[in-house]
């Protein structure tokens, strides 16, 4: 009996290690490909293609990116600004909403919960929304268009509500009230202090969404000075690809001052850099927050 048991256990162990190692490699190799490409000389890429290990080591990609850093830096600034502002504002509003909806003595909490939830079931669609943003709110080419749409999502509000409900005991509200604290004071002094892990998780979700956003720029921004970082990268890659395809079709080389392959990859690394750098630190909070949410689910 015991021998058989060991046999199965070892089989599963072997299977587990094999699958997980393969899966991890599959997740890692694409990043290595980009990093390696960004460190390879451009001629080598065009001649021999991409490799996992740079065939001809060179920093020219990064040099090109930082020769004219204006555009990249400006896009960084835009993204940094929208990320910080959007995350702060969104967190403020969503924690308030979560607090109100978590209060059991708030009579209409189910009505308002449904008011928020309903927007995930039915909506006007992209076009009416687009027309409202541009024609009625006049947000074209403004930072408002980059910040406003992502401020709140029903999912995060519900997550916040559940978190506050489980982290802050009902009795605390009562006793604070007896001590003469107003609703806002209770929220500011008690609820916020006790729900830090929840706030961290929701904040990270928000910040990640803002940092990775390219869609808002593509819809609402015509002024290249206000492009978000991701959209800037998107343009660099696609304009180069477009012109290259044109050139291939007509037999004319238009490659003069185009961003080269290695420059594109270096740009991708520069854009992703902060996330890759912060990843080991923020990952913990994500896992914690998700774990809490899932167990409650």
């Amino acid at each position, binding site marked *: 009996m015991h021998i058989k048991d060991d046999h199965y256990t070892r089989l599963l162990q072997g299977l587990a290690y094999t*699958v997980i190692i393969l899966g991890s490699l599959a997740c890692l190799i694409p990043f290595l490909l980009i990093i390696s490409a960004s460190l390879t000389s451009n001629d080598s890429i065009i001649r021999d*293609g991409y490799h996992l290990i740079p065939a001809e080591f060179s920093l020219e990609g990064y040099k090109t990116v930082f020769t004219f850093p204006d555009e990249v830096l400006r896009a960084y600034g835009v993204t940094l600004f929208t990320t910080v502002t959007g995350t702060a504002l969104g967190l403020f509003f969503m924690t308030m909403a979560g607090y*109100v909806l978590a209060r059991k003595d708030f009579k209409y909490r189910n009505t308002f919960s449904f008011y928020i939830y309903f927007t995930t079931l039915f909506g006007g669609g*992209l*076009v*009416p929304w687009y027309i*409202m943003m541009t024609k009625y709110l006049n947000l074209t080419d403004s930072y408002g268009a980059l910040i406003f749409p992502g401020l709140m999502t029903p999912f995060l509000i519900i997550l916040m509500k559940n978190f506050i409900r489980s982290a802050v005991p009902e009795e605390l509200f009562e006793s604070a009230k007896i001590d003469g604290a107003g609703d806002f004071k209770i929220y500011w002094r008690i609820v916020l202090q006790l729900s830090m892990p929840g706030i961290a998780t929701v904040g990270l979700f928000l910040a990640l969404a803002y940092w990775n956003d390219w869609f808002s720029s593509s819809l609402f921004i015509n002024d290249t000075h206000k492009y978000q970082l991701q959209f800037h990268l998107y343009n660099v890659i696609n304009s180069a690809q477009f012109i290259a395809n044109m050139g291939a079709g007509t037999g004319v080389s238009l490659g003069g001052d185009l961003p080269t392959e290695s420059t594109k990859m270096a740009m991708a690394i520069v854009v992703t850099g902060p996330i890759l750098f912060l990843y080991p630190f923020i990952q913990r909070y994500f896992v914690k927050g998700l774990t809490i949410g899932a167990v409650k689910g």
Partner: protein
Amino acid sequence: MLLPTLLFFLVNSYFPMVGVYYAFTQFDFNSGLFDAPFIGMKNFEFLWKSGTLVKLTLNTIGYNLAFILLGNVLAIVCAILLSELRHKWFKKLTQSIMFLPYFVSFVILSVIVYNVFNYDNGFLNTLLARFGAGPVDVYNKPVVWIFLIVLFYLWKNLGYSMVIYLAAITGISDEYYEAAKIDGAHIFQRIWYITVPMLKSTFVVLLLFSLGSIMKGQFDLFYQLIGNNGVLYNTTDILDTYVFRSLKVTFDIGMATAAGLYQSLFGFILIMTVNYIIRKINDDYALF
């Protein structure tokens, strides 16, 4: 204190619902809301007759079903295997690595895809050349993209759902396993009869959440991978990409609104039906 949130959803979600009126007009961007000439169901008729609606619906639902089913099954399998690993540092490391793709933007994903599959110097063709095979022009093969899109969806989201299932597995009490062990169940039996059934409620919750967005495709994923590459539309066009293109590229406002309204309505009816059925079977799992 709830007011900002209520206002936000009023402006961002409820006002645009009025705008579905455009779907019944011949819209001109310069006219006001109710100046546009009313043309009734013509926009819908055109979409229906051109076969666009059917193709888009099939693509949207098909991809989403593949995402949901494959995504969940794979996440469960990986979570179980991960939880069986012995070395703690290795477990942490691999979990972090598999979670990593979730953090990078879709624009970077498109860079990766280009990096691997581009015709002239992509990684795939470099590899093929080394084995003496000829290059493959992946960007010209519509059918391949069905698999590629599903593959990259899994690549990006597996780590995320894996963590959720892993949390659920950690929540299972050890006593069950001890008891089963004493009864002589080997490890595969323990997984099959204890872990898998215990994950059912997590699975159903995630399933229901994802069903809610079955008519909304992963716009970022499709748009960044395919872009405006017309060769691939037949197999890769979903409602979201069609609406976006009609708005930004072909300026077919009426048509785009019609498709958007169809998407919302169809999705709404679908969710209501599924929810109704689930409530009939087991009330606990119903969404509302």
